[in-house]
C-alpha cells in the first residue's frame, strides 16, 4: 500500500473515532467490553480450572453474598464470583468465534452473490433465504445435539444458523459498490474478480462488517448461553451452564437468588455492551441514520 493511501486511511480512521466518541452509550459499551475481554484474558494469572472443582469447594453450599464470597456460593459451595470469571472465558470465546465464523460465511456468500450475479446469485440467495426462515435456535439445538456439544460443534451450530442476514446485507452493499464508475474503470484496466472483490469491494464493506460482527457477537453469546442452559453443550463452565445448574438444583426453591441473578447479569451486561457498540458503529457508518439523529 502506498503512503498516500495509508495516510488517507489514517485520516478516515481518526475522523471515524471523533464521530464515535460522540455516542456516549457506544463509548460506555466499548469500555465495558474491553474490561470484560481483558479480565477473561488475564484470568489464568489469578485463578485456574480448580475454581469449578466440586470436591475442593471452599465454602458452605447455598451461602449468600458475604465478604469472602461477594456473589455467594452454589450448590456445592463454590464461589460464584470466581466461576463467573472463569466461565467468561468460555462464553466470550464461543461468542467471538461463532460470530467471526458466521460473518466470514456471510461475507463470502454475500460478496460472491453480489459480484457474480446471474445464476450464482440466484442459487446463493435461494440457499440464504432457506437458512433465513429456519428457526435458528431449534436448528442449532438439533445440530448441537446430533454432532455432540463440544466447543467446536457449538460454534459451528451457532454460525451455521446465523450467517444469512449478514449475507443479505453484504450482497446489497456489494451491488451498491459495484455500480460505482471506478469499478468499471478498474475492469477496463484489466482487473480480475479477485482484484475487484478484495481491493474494491472488501474495503467498502469492511466498516459495515465491523458493526454487524459486534452485533453478531452479542446474539452469539445469548445463543450459546441458551444452548448451554438447555444442556446440549459439554459441561465446561460457562454462564449458561451455571444457570442450568441453578435450575437443576432448584436455586429458586433454596432462595439462592444470587445464583440466578449474577450469571444472567453477566450475560446481560456483556450483551448490552456489544449491542451499544454495534448500534453506535451503525449510527456512525450509516449516513441515513446519522441525519436522523
Amino acid at each position, binding site marked *: 500500500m502506498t503512503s498516500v493511501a495509508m495516510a488517507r486511511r489514517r485520516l478516515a480512521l481518526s475522523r471515524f473515532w471523533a464521530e464515535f466518541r460522540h455516542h456516549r452509550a457506544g463509548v460506555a459499551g466499548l469500555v465495558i467490553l474491553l474490561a470484560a475481554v481483558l479480565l477473561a484474558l488475564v484470568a489464568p494469572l489469578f485463578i485456574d480450572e480448580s475454581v469449578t472443582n466440586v470436591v475442593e469447594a471452599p465454602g458452605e453450599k447455598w451461602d449468600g453474598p458475604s465478604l469472602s464470597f461477594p456473589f455467594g456460593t452454589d450448590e456445592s459451595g463454590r464461589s460464584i464470583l470466581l466461576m463467573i470469571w472463569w466461565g467468561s472465558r468460555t462464553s466470550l470465546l464461543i461468542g467471538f468465534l461463532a460470530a467471526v465464523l458466521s460473518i466470514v460465511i456471510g461475507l463470502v456468500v454475500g460478496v460472491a452473490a453480489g459480484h457474480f450475479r446471474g445464476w450464482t446469485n440466484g442459487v446463493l440467495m435461494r440457499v440464504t433465504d432457506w437458512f433465513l426462515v429456519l428457526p435458528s*435456535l*431449534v436448528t442449532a439445538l438439533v445440530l448441537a445435539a446430533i454432532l455432540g456439544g463440544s466447543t467446536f460443534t457449538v460454534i459451528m451450530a451457532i454460525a451455521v444458523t446465523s450467517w444469512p442476514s449478514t449475507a443479505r446485507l453484504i450482497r446489497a452493499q456489494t451491488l451498491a459498490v459495484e455500480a460505482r464508475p471506478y469499478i468499471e474503470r478498474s475492469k477496463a484496466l484489466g482487473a480480475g474478480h479477485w482484484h475487484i472483490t478484495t481491493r474494491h469491494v472488501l474495503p467498502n464493506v469492511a466498516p459495515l462488517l465491523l458493526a454487524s460482527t459486534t452485533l453478531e457477537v452479542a446474539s452469539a453469546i445469548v445463543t450459546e448461553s441458551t444452548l448451554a442452559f438447555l444442556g446440549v453443550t459439554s459441561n465446561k463452565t460457562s454462564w449458561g451452564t451455571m444457570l442450568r445448574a441453578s435450575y437443576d438444583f432448584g436455586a429458586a426453591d433454596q432462595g439462592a437468588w444470587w445464583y440466578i441473578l449474577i450469571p444472567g447479569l453477566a450475560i446481560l451486561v456483556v450483551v448490552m455492551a456489544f449491542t451499544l457498540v454495534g448500534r453506535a458503529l451503525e449510527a456512525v457508518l450509516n449516513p441515513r441514520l446519522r441525519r436522523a439523529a
Partner: protein
Amino acid sequence: MTTPLESAEPAVQAAGPADERPTSRGTLQYALSKAGGALFSIAMVLVGTFFVFRLLPGDPVRNLAQGRNMTPDQLDLERRRLGLDKPLIDQFLNFVGDTLRLDLGTSYEYKRPVIDLIGERIGPTLLLTGTGLVIAVSLGIWQGTRAGWRHGSRFDRVSTGVSLLLWSVPTFWLGLLLMMVFGVGIGPIPSLFPFRGIESVDAPDGFGYVLDVASHMVLPCLTLVAVVYAQYLMVMRSSLLEEVSQDYVTVARAKGLRDDEVRRRHAVPNALLPTVTLVFMRIGFVVGGAVTVEYIYTWPGLGQLFYRAIEVPDFTLMQGTFMLITVSVIVMNTLADVVYHLLDPRVRSA
C-alpha cells in the same frame, strides 16, 4: 418442484375476468410463485433432515437402542425393521413417503407414534404462543405508536430503553427470574402464580378449570411476551417515524384533522404494514422462545417434547418435531409474504 406452479398456470390464464383486473391476477401469480418457493423449501427441509440425522456418529440402531444389551441377531432384526439394510436412495424414498403420509416413526422414549405425541402436545403450545403473540403484538403496536408519534418524548425514551434491555435479555434467564420472584416467591413476596405444568392436580371442573389453566399460563406467557413485544415496538416505532414526515400526513394536518385522527386514520394504517409482516417473519424466534419457556415452566407442549427428544436423545422424536416446527415456520413466512402483497398496493404495482 415447479410442477404445482406449471399445473396452476393455465387456470390463471383461463380465469377470463381476472385478466381485466391485473392486480388480482398478479396477486394470484405472486401467491403461486411463493407457494412454489415454500414447497421447494419444505422439500429441502426433508432432504436436509434425512441427511443430517444420518450424520449421527455411530450406528443408528445402537444409538436408538441406547446402550441396552442386544444380541447381534436382535440388532440385525432391528436394522431390517428400520429399513437400514437398504441402499441410501431407497431409504430416502421410504422416508419421504412415510413423512408425506404423516408417519413420523415411533418414539423410543415414549414407545408411541411421534405423530400422536405431537397431536397431544400441539394444543398447549398453540394456546401459550397464541395468547403470547396476541398480547405481544397489541402491546408492541400500541407502545410503538405512542413512542413514534411523540418522537423524543419521555415515553419514547423510556419504552425504547426498556425494549433494548429486553432485547438483550436471554429468554430463559427472564423466565428463571420471573419464576423465582412470582412463582416461588422471594423475601416478602409470596408465591403468586403456579409455575409448574398447565393445571393443578386438584383442578376443579368447568369454569374453575379455565381459571386454573389461566393462572398457570401467567408466568410463561409473561416471559414470552416480554422478549417478543420489544421488537414489535421497535419496528412499529421506526415505521411510524418514516410515515410522519410524508406529504400525506402534512396534507391531513393541513385539512385541519385532529392530531389523533391523523394518527389513527392516516399514519398508523400505513405504518402497520411492516409490523404485520414482522409478526409472521419472527414466528421462528417465537418458537425458539417457546422451547425454553416450556422447558422452564414444564408446560406440556411441543417445545417441551422437543426438549425431551434432545435430552434423551430420542432421534425419531427429534426429527419429527424438528420437521413439524420448521415446516410450520416456512408456511407462516409464505403467508406473511402473500398477506403483505395483498395489503400493500405499492408492492403490488412494483
